[in-house]
């Protein structure tokens, strides 16, 4: 080990230090070149034309164009782009704090339910045509239905018992009207939102199946085309569209450029000449491009919210994009050791009382998250049943026989009485939990540290293990008590960008019903099952609220602040953007404004 090696080592160290300093200088103090002509957040004169560039989420390159999504290709950005080329019959739209399916851009009139809710009749609106001039007919809807019916295992959106299983017969009434005969009566609002909405998409039968091949053969052929990413812009198959946009370019790296479909016959014709969706490998690279003015509609990490003023000074508006979602820590009720504790409702309530959602949302998430109140979006629930109240949590635990010894609560009254710890909890058992949380996010890490700190003050020991998201998702799966997998985790968190995104109707059949595929914590409550069924089958508009309030009180998971899908930064002169909570896009509504008589950009 000689002098030269020492010099090399020191040079490397100093170079590292220099790199850090340069990063700080260029990152924190450099001039921003992305200043735009600020016309203010309101006002200005609308101009037609121009190109708007939107940043896609990090490592999210659109890679699927076929409206029947294959498993593994169901990402939100794929669906959002497909909707612009092949719009579904019904799309949700935000009205007030909730979503409705009464959207002016729907391709069909509102569905009519008959025979006690066992049939649904749909009539397509007049005048819709494909981009080659052929009218959109019920035959195009039947084409879609036959494809998913005969290939349901290959359809990523398939859930047993739901579409197409719950449709006994598809009847064509005429060119614009069809009727579905269902296997039982359903809640019309639920069926329209979660079955017809976003799922049913007319497909160009005349262009995609001119030889009238069988659905299986056709599907296999279309799937072959859908896997050729490099040919999306050139393949004649994808040239026939019904939506307001058509493809101009689609690079294999995921950059997509759309131009208006000039033969679009819907009410929402595009104002822009072009819209570009730009992919990024990391959030940092996107942030740098945003600051240099390379995108008109981008996003910033929550930690930069303190700098929102700097963006506003430069002619941008900062607008968190809130998803139709909830966020929570999953509790493994089947864990052999901690399961008996977590199965006690009073204990789950105490754990919830100790989570200061408001402070976490304000400080840790920099105001870009909102408290989750229960199993449905917060706006649909009147109040938070368990606001932060550490004193109440301590009283609740003390009333059930937990005493602090050596800094940790221990059960001193085992048994099943009203003042005892509860079934399966041993005498002297410590209230010690382990949380498996996703890594890679400062906000998530800080949130967990805050919860751990709060629990520690109450005498609850919480160990935090951080692992990559895929590891957490692969570990926190539904399990039986006897399975070794059930011992691998106690509490789990995978909600850095929201734990669960709902379909338009936020029912719980996939989330909190007994045995549901996404019921990771193995929660089972007959009363909750009844209420969930009511949201699916009964026509009572209060069913959803009743389900939400009941499950919120039961605390099957620990509710934590629901972060925004992204904190958007948008040029002030780009208008018409409605950040839909279901993460769909409508760039046909976007337009530029100018402050004076000068021509708009473009």
């Amino acid at each position: 080990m000689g002098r030269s090696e020492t010099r090399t080592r020191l040079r490397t160290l100093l170079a590292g230090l220099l790199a850090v300093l340069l990063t700080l200088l260029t990152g924190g103090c450099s001039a921003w070149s992305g200043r735009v002509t600020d016309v203010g957040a309101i006002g200005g004169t609308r101009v037609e034309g121009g190109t708007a560039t939107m940043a896609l989420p990090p490592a999210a390159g659109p890679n699927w164009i076929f409206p029947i999504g294959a498993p593994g290709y169901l990402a939100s950005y794929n669906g959002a782009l497909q909707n612009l080329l092949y719009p579904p019959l019904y799309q949700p739209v935000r009205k007030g704090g909730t979503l409705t399916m009464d959207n002016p851009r729907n391709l069909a009139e509102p569905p009519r339910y008959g025979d006690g809710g066992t049939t649904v009749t749909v009539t397509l609106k007049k005048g819709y045509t494909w981009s080659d001039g052929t009218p959109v007919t019920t035959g195009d809807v039947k084409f879609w239905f036959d494809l998913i019916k005969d290939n349901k295992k290959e359809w990523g959106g398939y859930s047993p018992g739901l579409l197409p299983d719950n449709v006994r017969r598809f009847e064509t009434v005429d060119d614009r009207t069809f009727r579905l005969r269902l296997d039982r009566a359903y809640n019309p609002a639920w069926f329209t939102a979660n079955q017809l909405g976003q799922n049913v998409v007319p497909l160009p039968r005349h262009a995609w199946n001119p030889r009238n091949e069988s659905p299986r053969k056709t599907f296999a052929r279309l799937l072959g085309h859908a896997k050729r990413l490099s040919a999306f812009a050139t393949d004649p198959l994808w040239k026939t569209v019904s939506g307001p946009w058509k493809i101009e370019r689609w690079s294999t790296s995921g950059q997509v450029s759309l131009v208006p479909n000039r033969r679009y016959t819907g009410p929402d014709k595009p104002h822009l000449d072009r819209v570009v969706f730009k992919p990024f490998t990391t959030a940092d690279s996107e942030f740098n491009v945003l600051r240099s003015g390379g995108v008109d509609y981008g996003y910033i990490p929550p930690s930069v919210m303190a700098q929102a003023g700097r963006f506003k000074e430069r002619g941008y508006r900062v607008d968190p994009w809130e998803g139709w979602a909830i966020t929570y820590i999953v509790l493994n009720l089947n864990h052999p050791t901690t399961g008996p504790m977590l199965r006690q409702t009073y204990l789950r309530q105490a754990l919830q009382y100790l989570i200061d959602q408001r402070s976490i949302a304000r400080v840790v998430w920099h105001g870009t998250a909102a408290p989750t109140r229960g199993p449905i979006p917060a706006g649909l629930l009147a109040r938070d049943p368990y606001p932060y109240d550490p004193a109440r949590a301590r009283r609740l635990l003390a009333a059930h026989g937990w005493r602090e010894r050596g800094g940790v609560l221990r059960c001193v009254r085992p048994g099943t009485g009203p003042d005892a710890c509860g079934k399966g909890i041993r005498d002297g058992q410590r209230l010690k939990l382990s949380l498996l949380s996703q890594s890679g996010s400062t906000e998530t890490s800080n949130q967990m540290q805050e919860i751990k700190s709060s629990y520690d003050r109450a005498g609850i020991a919480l160990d935090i293990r951080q692992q990559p998201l895929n590891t957490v998702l692969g570990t926190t799966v539904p399990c039986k008590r006897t399975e070794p997998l059930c011992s691998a985790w106690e509490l789990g968190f995978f909600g850095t960008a929201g734990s669960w995104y709902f379909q338009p109707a936020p029912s719980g059949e996939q989330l909190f019903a007994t045995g549901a595929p996404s019921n990771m914590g193995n929660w089972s409550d007959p009363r909750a099952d009844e209420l969930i069924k009511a949201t699916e089958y009964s026509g009572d508009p209060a069913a959803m609220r009743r389900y939400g309030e009941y499950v919120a009180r039961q605390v099957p998971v620990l509710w934590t602040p629901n972060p925004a899908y992204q904190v958007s930064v948008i040029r002030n002169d780009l208008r018409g953007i409605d950040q839909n909570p279901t993460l769909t896009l409508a760039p046909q509504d976007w337009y530029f404004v100018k402050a004076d008589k000068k021509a708009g950009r473009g």
Partner: protein
Amino acid sequence: MTAAGSVSAAPATPGPGRRALAVFTRDKPALAGAVVLVALMAFCFLGPLIRPTDQVHTDLGRANLPPGSPGHPLGTTDLGYDMLGRLMTGGQTSLEVGLAAGLLATFIGTVYGAVAGYFGGWLDAAMMRITDAALAIPALFLLVVVATIVTPSKPVLTLIIASVAWLSPARLIRGEALALRSRDYVHAMRLMGGGGTRAVFRHIVPNAIGTVIVNATFQIADAILYVAYLSFLGLSIPPPAADWGSMLSTGITYTQVGYWWLIFPPGIAIVLVVAAFTFLGDGLRDAFDVRLQRTRRNRR
């Protein structure tokens, strides 16, 4: 009658230890390194006793206070921890893991290299091919993979880092052992019936101790950097424990907001401790170098 003759007393020759100390004390960068290390150790391990702070419970009401705020000379972190206190406790983790991993790697590498070099032949060839193969795999890649599989703790981090860091000292000591095994005292030991184990642990390793000690300092510096790398990648000891790497990683999140006090203190601390160990190692190398000792003595 006079004495048949008198011999004037020759000046006493200092022993090798004193000669090494003399060379070391004349090496100003090495001395500075030693002083900085002692100061950092005192800061990290004695500091919390003099100025105790709560580094377990968060205080969201005091998050991100700038330096100079009442009671917080270096400000607070994004969770309201006192930054000065966190720098001390974070330093404990970095230094403890760095020291333990560096020493463990040196120990394993020394024994492995000495055995391979002394016994030679097919055993040496096999052991060194294993080392070459392991060296071909990028250390950081291995560290990240292992740290992803297991939950890092101080002992686990120490083992993970030592498991990839022992390769370099193994090759170095093997070279020393190849030279030492042909020395007369080793032959003599063999003629008197001494075995391989005695040769390795009583003759080869003690006579290569200078190289071992110098290498240990560099291993410690590298281990501290490895801890920082892993923490920077989010593979640190779970919160609320901290180390300088994880503090730096958190601070970088706030680069755009200008919270410089979350970045510079841990960054400077890492640079200081690694530079100090490097200078110290360099000084020790010179101190143990017999030729350098002679040259400097002759110059006197």
